[in-house]
């Protein structure tokens, strides 16, 4: 396959996967609206007074993580499981489509949705909640948030490789919502008991949120390297889990129940 054709396949695959997801109103609305509404409600309207930190700034970082986590988990976890069960993946596998095009299209789609949520959150934070940061902080926060697509997409991949299409939504929600809560994405992590704060150390969303909070100087004070190492390590673990899942069902084939 020539380089030019390869680029075109990668582009069109991403283009159409994005349009496909965009036209799914339930996905677009829930993935975009949840973090924005939650942020408006908990970060702006119900602003906890008297604490030592401006909550609207703190929650900008954590709801940013929430906004990245959603599309990555759902697009990969649910999308992959459904498309394997309908047989679409198998059909595409029989064509010359490079497998990488399919996955990079999924990552791109998650990235576009994530960037949309992040921009909207930034605008609300800036113009409704009066948050101001240094310019480098705005850029660094956006960069750290978007980079979260990588570990979260691999987590979605690991889920999608193992579950059936019909149960995928339920299972992804069972991971998505509790993990968001326990990682301190909705309520600041420091209000939890020490035990729960220690439990959060195993959650990728916790480490990603701490990196985002680091940018605005509101993290729990653990070293950056710790968070990066955990996230990179978990990314590899998720990839291995996904590979095992694919091997179990023999590639992309339709799983017969």
């Amino acid at each position, binding site marked *: 396959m020539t380089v030019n054709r390869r680029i075109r396949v990668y582009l069109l695959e991403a283009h*159409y996967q994005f349009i496909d997801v965009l036209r799914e109103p339930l996905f677009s609305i829930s993935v975009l609206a949840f973090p924005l509404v939650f942020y408006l409600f908990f970060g702006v309207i119900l602003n906890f007074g008297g604490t030592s930190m401006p909550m609207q700034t703190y929650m900008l970082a954590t709801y940013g993580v929430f906004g990245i986590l959603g599309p990555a988990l759902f697009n990969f976890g649910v999308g992959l499981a459904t498309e394997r069960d309908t*047989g679409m993946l198998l059909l595409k596998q029989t064509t010359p489509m490079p497998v990488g095009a399919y996955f990079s299209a999924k990552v791109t789609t998650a990235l576009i949705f994530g960037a949309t949520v992040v921009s909207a959150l930034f605008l609300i934070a800036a113009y409704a909640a009066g948050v101001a940061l240094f310019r480098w902080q705005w850029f660094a926060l956006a960069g750290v948030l978007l980079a979260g697509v990588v570990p979260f997409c691999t987590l979605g991949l690991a889920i999608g490789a193992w579950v059936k299409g019909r149960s995928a939504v339920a299972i992804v929600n069972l991971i998505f919502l509790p993990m968001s809560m326990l990682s301190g994405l909705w309520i600041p992590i420091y209000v939890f008991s020490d035990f729960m704060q220690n439990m959060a150390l195993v959650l990728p969303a916790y480490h990603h949120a701490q990196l985002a909070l680091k940018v605005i100087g509101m993290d729990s004070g653990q070293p950056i390297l710790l968070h990066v190492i955990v996230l990179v390590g978990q990314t590899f673990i998720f990839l291995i889990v996904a590979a095992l899942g694919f091997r179990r069902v023999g590639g992309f084939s339709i799983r017969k129940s």
Partner: protein
Amino acid sequence: MENQPTHSDESVLARLSSVTHHYGSILALDELDLEVRQGEVLGVLGPNGAGKTTAINLLLGNLRVQQGSVSVFGQDPGAMQVRERRGAMLQVSGISGNLTVRENIELFSSYYPAPLAVAKLLSTAGIEDLSERRFGKLSGGQKQRVMFALALASDPELLFLDEPTTGLDVDARHRLWDEIRTLEVTAVLSTHNLAEVDALADRVIVIHHGQRIADGTPSEIKSHVAGRLVRCVTSTLPDEITQFPGVIQAKVRGRHLEVQTTLPEDLVRDLLARDEDLVDLTVEAVDLESAFLSLTKESP
């Protein structure tokens, strides 16, 4: 029945050579040989679970070969050059439902080096009027015609059709048959529907429990399932009526006498006359499955 002339390699586009395939402990293919020759439509006929889809997926490179060898265009079935020259219609329940028919076809066309024009694909599959509709909103028959267009996107030299009309109503089935018939392309058609191979195939192999049990033209295969199947509990023995006009075969299965005949009315009258104690009489169409079972019984 197993004998067939060996063909020179140029005329064979795809070949399974003594392929055995297991899913865990389940044997799906048992030493299966299969050749697809240039220009023919090969029907692969068999009841559900016979191993047809396994054979197709091996020919497509979707399954790893466990035993035996598989080649397409003289190469590994998963090779990129092979993928670019073939098309496949699989038992797939859906593609991107929120994309229009045209968008789906454009996407699949982009995978191939020299795809057919989208307009040509739409007209060949008879779906011009559906091109702007979302795939998810189409009926089953319309969806299958879109799948058919996708299978043709590569302008294939070899086309795989795995149960192309399963689940379609009679109208939709005949429309799709008409469209397939207009093609002049080498094709492998797997189906459990005898009428389908009769309508489309030049040559048929019948597989059952992963083994090839018959090979011939559609009419030869069809003769095995001609007529009606008469079953009853009676004292009459099979040998007494094998010479009766219209009888194709007769045998005992369990308590029942089973007779396949083209003249069921005459046979029933005769059977009733021979044995007044005859009970449990049924007359039914010969389904493929029982015909295949009889074929398996025949071969030692």
